[in-house]
């Protein structure tokens, strides 16, 4: 049953035209790369047990090239929105012909989380990003660092948990989980908050960005995103003209993470 109102884009008029045009808005490939460059789980997968010790030459080259592109884009700043008017072949954007919800939410299906993820993951994914096959030297403790448990969330969130087995019961449960998930903004500055603040100020106020990065270093010296923090700090120092400090910090980075995927970006930052 679906008694949702007809969408405006299915009608006529300027508002309908505008909505149809708006559905074509999306990031350029470069903008996608800029987003991906800030996501450690995309560029720095944890090592698989028994993984080869070093990347292949072509893999390393691809990673390096990708990061250089991302670094240049991030340095350039001023992201733009791209109207992908001609790119009608992409399924995710062909929403007018194939509404997304009918593909993802068939009536009467089981709504188990595993089924949901499997369905999501069964979709073909274009191979845009390079894989990293090896990790930096002190990587032995990295998986545990990256997956270490967070401190418990608020009692409010804990109290809203529905008993096991109630998951597929009714739509009325959906707001419960959404409310539970609403607790994704931390009550104090955590790793992500500090890094996000540093990133946000990098272009407009590099001194503040450096301050946030250093706060992160004080609170989370070996945190899950220590490498990303150092890259931001080096970038901020370079923007402030404190080149000697940037180079010293880059040298320390190189010693600590000699095989980091961020090495190419640091090189790009420090290019004369």
């Amino acid at each position, binding site marked *: 049953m679906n008694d*949702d*109102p007809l969408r405006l*884009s299915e009608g006529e*008029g*300027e*508002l309908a035209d*505008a*909505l149809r*045009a*708006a*559905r074509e*808005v999306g*990031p*350029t490939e470069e*903008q996608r790369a800029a*987003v991906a460059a*800030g*996501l450690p*789980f*995309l560029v720095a*997968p*944890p090592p698989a047990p028994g993984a080869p010790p070093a990347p292949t030459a072509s893999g390393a080259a691809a990673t390096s090239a990708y990061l250089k592109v991302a670094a240049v884009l991030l340095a350039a700043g*001023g992201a*733009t*929105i*791209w*109207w992908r*008017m001609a790119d009608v072949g992409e399924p*995710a954007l062909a929403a007018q012909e194939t509404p997304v*919800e009918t593909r*993802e*939410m068939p009536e009467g299906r089981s*709504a188990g*989380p*595993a*089924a*949901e993820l499997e369905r*999501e*993951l069964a*979709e073909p*994914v*274009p191979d*845009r990003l390079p894989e990293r096959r090896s990790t930096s030297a002190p990587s032995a403790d990295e998986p545990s660092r990256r997956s270490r448990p967070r401190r418990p969330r608020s009692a409010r969130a804990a109290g809203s948990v*529905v008993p096991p*087995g109630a*998951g597929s019961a009714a*739509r009325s*449960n*959906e*707001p419960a*989980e*959404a*409310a*539970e*998930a609403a607790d*994704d*903004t931390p009550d104090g500055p955590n790793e*992500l908050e500090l890094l996000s603040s540093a*990133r*946000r100020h990098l272009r407009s106020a590099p001194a503040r960005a450096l301050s946030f990065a250093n706060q992160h270093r004080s609170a989370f010296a070996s945190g899950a995103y220590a490498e990303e923090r150092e890259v931001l700090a080096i970038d901020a120092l370079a923007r402030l003209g404190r080149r000697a400090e940037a180079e010293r910090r880059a040298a320390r980075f190189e010693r600590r993470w000699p095989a980091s995927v961020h090495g190419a970006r640091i090189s790009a930052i420090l290019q004369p």
Partner: protein
Amino acid sequence: MQALPKTDHASMRAIYEQHVDHVWRTVAFLGVATSEVPDVCQEVFLTVHRKLASFEGRSSLRTWIYGITTRTVAAHRRRAYTRRERPHAEVPDSNVAPPQEDHLLAQERVRRLEDALNKLDERQREVFVLYELQEMKMGEVAAALAIPQQTAYSRLHAARKALRSIFRGGEHS
């Protein structure tokens, strides 16, 4: 309750690839300044990564991600307000695409829609963007925003009324 598949690198990458365009569009039309859209998208996916293990499948993964997206944008807006910056200060720049006539027309339409959306109440705007642009069902919209479905309908109705009035009245120049 079924156990989640292990959320490894491949899983997150697949989720990112499948949702990044939609998240980008949602963030952009919820009024985040163009230059800050990449940062906000990163925050969304970092949160998804951090919380994926706690996703229990009581809503669709897509609904869950849009819930995170709208809350991340709301938090960003609060920070922007605190910094006394206008979140809508920048107008999208389309200099990446070739200046074809159709493209310019579409660009103008999008710009006009953004101007109109900027005049909406933020809560109405969230419902409108998720329903009209992202084509979610109203039940999914209500779930993502953690509001009763009737409230979602009311906000959609109010948003439509306001936007129709703006477009009819030609407030945009």
